[in-house]
């Protein structure tokens, strides 16, 4: 009688694992700061709002992205969609400026009262308009 044994040895693979630690460092986002700069320096604007005698250059795409009301106004079928100058009535310039800052920078904090010397009576109106804008998002 002949007995044949086939022996197979199974061992762990000898591949070395690739060492980690090469993660790419992504810098913290400064998007708000950059958009704020965009607004402040009035570069590449494509629409100008006329509010209470003052003018506010702005960017349609930013406004549309941030507010469905502005989107409907600037990209809809009425005259503002084709106009470069849009008149805003029944609003104080300071309030509109605060609204733009809110849209571009988007901080959870409301504008500091000290800016533009807005008096106390106007503060409530600012709150109301900002809430309206936020609610329509």
């Amino acid at each position: 009688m002949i007995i044949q044994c086939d022996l197979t040895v199974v061992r762990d693979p000898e591949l070395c694992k690739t060492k980690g630690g090469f993660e790419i460092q992504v810098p913290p986002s400064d998007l708000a700061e950059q958009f704020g700069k965009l607004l402040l320096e009035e570069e590449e604007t494509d629409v100008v709002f006329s509010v209470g005698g003052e003018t506010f250059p702005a960017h349609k795409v930013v406004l549309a992205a941030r507010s469905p009301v502005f989107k409907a106004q600037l990209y809809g079928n009425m005259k503002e969609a084709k106009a470069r100058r849009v008149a805003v009535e029944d609003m104080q310039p300071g309030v509109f400026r605060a609204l733009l800052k809110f849209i571009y920078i988007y901080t959870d904090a409301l504008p500091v009262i000290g800016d533009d010397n807005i008096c106390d009576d106007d503060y409530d109106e600012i709150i109301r308009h900002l809430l309206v804008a936020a609610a329509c998002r």
Partner: protein
Amino acid sequence: MSSGGPPRKRNFKIEAFKNRVDLDPKYAERTWKVLEHAIHEIYNRNASGLSFEELYRSAYNMVLHKYGEKLYDGLQSTMTWRLKEISKSIEAAQGGLFLEELNAKWMDHNKALQMIRDILMYMDRTYVPTSHRTPVHELGLNLWRDHIIHSPMIHSRLVNTLLDLIKRERMGEVINRGLMRSITKMLMDLGPAVYQDDFEKPFLDVSARFYSVESQEFIVCCDCGNYLKKAERRLNEEMERVSHYLDAGSEAKITSVVEKEMIANHMHRLVHMENSGLVNMLVDDQYKDLGRMYSLFRRVPDGLSTIRDVMTSYLRETGKQLVIDPESLKDPVEFVQRLLNEKDKHDKIISVAFGNDKTFQNALNSSFEYFLNLNSRSPEFISLYVDDKLRKGLKGATEEDVEVILDKVMMLFRYLQEKDVFEKYYKQHLAKRLLSSKTVSDDAERSMIVKLKTECGYQFTSKLEGMFTDMKTSQDTMQDFYAKKSEELGDGPTLDVHILTTGSWPTQPSPPCNLPTEILTVCEKFRAYYLGTHNGRRLTWQTNMGTADIKATFGKGQKHELNVSTYQMCVLMLFNNADGLTYKDIERDTEIPASDLKRCLQSLACVKGKNVLRKEPMSKDISEDDTFYFNDKFTSKLVKVKIGTVVAQKESEPEKQETRQRVEEDRKPQIEAAIVRIMKSRRVLDHNSIVAEVTKQLQARFLPNPVVIKKRIESLIEREFLERDKVDRKLYRYLA
């Protein structure tokens, strides 16, 4: 962040703004007029002149100052008014322009609705939720539904127009599918219920009537195959229509209508249609029509079972005719070949046309089992078919071919309910092949044995394998015999012995005949040799199963080598010492049994071209008054002449009965063994359960007869393996 400008004084402006806030009784009315006018301008497609800022602010202020209800109600009444005007223009559309006008107005309405919703965004966000009113966009859709779609003048016309266009498309006309799609999408946008109630339901109803009428026409003028083609085409058309311009949810519903009207309602008439129905398709191997019938019938309840039932009936009837046809019984090989061809034919139909459907395979199997067992000779015929293949049919075939044919035979074998009968015949036929060296290859023989073992277990084939072992042992024994005894044997005749184990071979008791002296001498030498090396063995000569090669010289000196049976050899050797012998002389000198002797002499004296003997008087049959002479005038073109015994390829009726009897006798101990096995494990069991268990255990070999089982139980009781329960006569107890 500061713009860097100097601070500015604004106190003087505060008073001016606060004055605006005062409620002005006419403010709301004036503001609403602005908005109302704008809505009309939007509908008049003059939106490009409007100021979104002004309108949005106006709506905002109205809601802010608690005029939301006025704003909402005003919107609703204004849109209602506009839609009623739109309704009139749609109604006024002439003929084919109706749908186009409807669609154009719908698109306008949607655009307007989008803009209106935008300027009233603040109302939608604040007033609508708190007052539980319908949102603006949804309100617009609802008003369109109520004043346009459900307008009495438009509704019926819309439905009828849509259905008419579909009807025309069914008749082969080309219609505007894009327009149809727009309209049906509109109905879906208004809500699934609108689509379903206002279009889908009437569509399905009209379709049912359409296909009911059409199918009645088709069924009269078309044959089955053509009808199914049309039905298939209609089904495909309806599915295509859904994909082009109906809602996807309609597909299952409309196909269900077509299936019911064109298939389900005519199913039985179709399969039984004269000259073109299912049976005709089966007979003529119409794979495409069969495949189409299968795929269509599968869509309806009982469709496949209808096909299966008809196919089963046809198979059973056809198969029954085949197995009971006296003509086909004449040639067992032809009989089995026809069955195999029938099986191949329907296997192909099932695989090509019926998608290898398991339920159809089962129907085919049960049909074959049904009719194959109608003929009690099927086991014998299958064995004869295998015998024919293994003798010569598979000569020159490749190993693969051998396997294919044997596998097919095994399929028939599986259908047999009396596999033990097959085994009995197979053993007989195998014995003849082995003993006459008439087998194409040992490998093929062993392959068959392996298949039988796989199918029925070792017990079934153990004796068959024993036969092969005997052949091998015999070969070795003869080699050893001649190696050791060559000097003693000298120039006598050469002997080749097959040593057959009792019980493995289908031998019958054979009275010994008188062998010629020359043969007897060498037989005795072999006997002495064999018994000298195997103590306790007993040798019995089976002279009815041997063959012999004889050299003969005839009148004019012609020499031939005759291949004859052992019996024939015994007869021929007598003529070395006599020119003429009577039947009685031969019978006395050889002691061959009468039936064998007559057959033997018939082969020697009555077969033209092989008649090495001459008989007087000349006739076709042997009688006991005949006289036989050596035929000096015998001639043949061949040097080797094979004189076969006139053997029946099939069993005669008495032989068949004898085989049956032996099978029945063999079944008794098997049934008893099964009963004892069952009772030993159960100890106590009732009569019906025993019958069921025994049947279950033995059905792989044969179906036991309940009456026979009962008798076996009685016999076991008599022999005290079992006893009846004292209280319940139907209960049996096992006795250790």
